[in-house]
């Protein structure tokens, strides 16, 4: 694939190191800021793969909106004290989780490496996208023609999420702990 190997490996190593920080840091705020770096690295890889609209959306929605929500909840709950939940997890459970992930990851990489690409290619070559006005214009034309029904259903989903989030967070649950 004709993308710059230097920038790809730079962004990929940033993403892997910071996502390891996300799951290994004790402080939730440190995890949240590592996650922001992962999102920026992903946006760089999207831009390398000529998905410019997705790269911009990644920064706006993930690194902007979702992470602000996370940091806001951490602040609101005053939960930014270091949590030592890593130490309380059984060593055996940690070993099993790591081993399971590593084995499945190995199978995935072996499958990706040995599979052949013989699927039918679509009409959107790089030159065709350039000729019809660029990535953003092609996506927006598809969004309002072929994908109009999922696009409209998205608005219903967002409305349901707004009402649901307010309803869940506002009401105090009546189930208490038996002291």
């Amino acid at each position, binding site marked *: 694939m004709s993308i710059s190997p230097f920038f790809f490996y730079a962004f990929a190593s940033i993403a892997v190191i910071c996502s390891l920080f996300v799951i290994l840091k004790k402080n939730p705020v440190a*995890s949240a800021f590592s996650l922001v770096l992962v999102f920026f690295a992903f946006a760089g*890889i999207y831009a390398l793969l000529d998905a410019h609209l997705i790269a911009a959306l990644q920064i706006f929605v993930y690194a902007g909106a979702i992470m602000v929500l996370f940091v806001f*909840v951490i602040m609101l*709950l005053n939960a930014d004290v270091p949590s030592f*939940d890593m130490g309380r997890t059984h060593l055996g459970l940690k070993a099993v989780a790591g081993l399971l992930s590593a084995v499945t990851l190995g199978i995935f990489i072996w499958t990706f*490496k040995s599979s052949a690409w013989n699927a039918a290619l679509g009409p959107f070559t790089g030159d065709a996208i350039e000729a019809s006005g660029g990535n953003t214009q092609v*996506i927006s034309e598809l969004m309002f023609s072929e994908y109009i029904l999922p696009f409209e259903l998205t608005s219903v989903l967002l409305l349901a999420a707004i009402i649901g989030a307010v309803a869940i967070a506002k009401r*105090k649950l009546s189930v208490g702990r038996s002291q």
Partner: protein
Amino acid sequence: MTQVEPWVILSFCAIIFFIGFTGVLIRRNILIVLMCIELMLNAVNLTFVTFSKQLQHMGGQMSVFFVITVAAAESAVGLGLVIAMFRTLRSVDTDEIQLLRE
């Protein structure tokens, strides 16, 4: 080496996905579990974009658009649930969720 093979990008996505998967399994802080879910969704998005570029089809990038929307809705509702849990249990520890045990 002047080219990045597609399987390298797909393997990178799998690495990020399984880092997030391991985090869901070993962490008990529910905020970090939610962050790991976001990490896994991002890995899947990059897989979509890689296939979209490789197969020259725009359906992958449209799917990423909808996945981002669903992820935003999911994190809003999920953090609402975290707030409700904290108001009820005074904790963000997943081990404290044992209301059905009594």
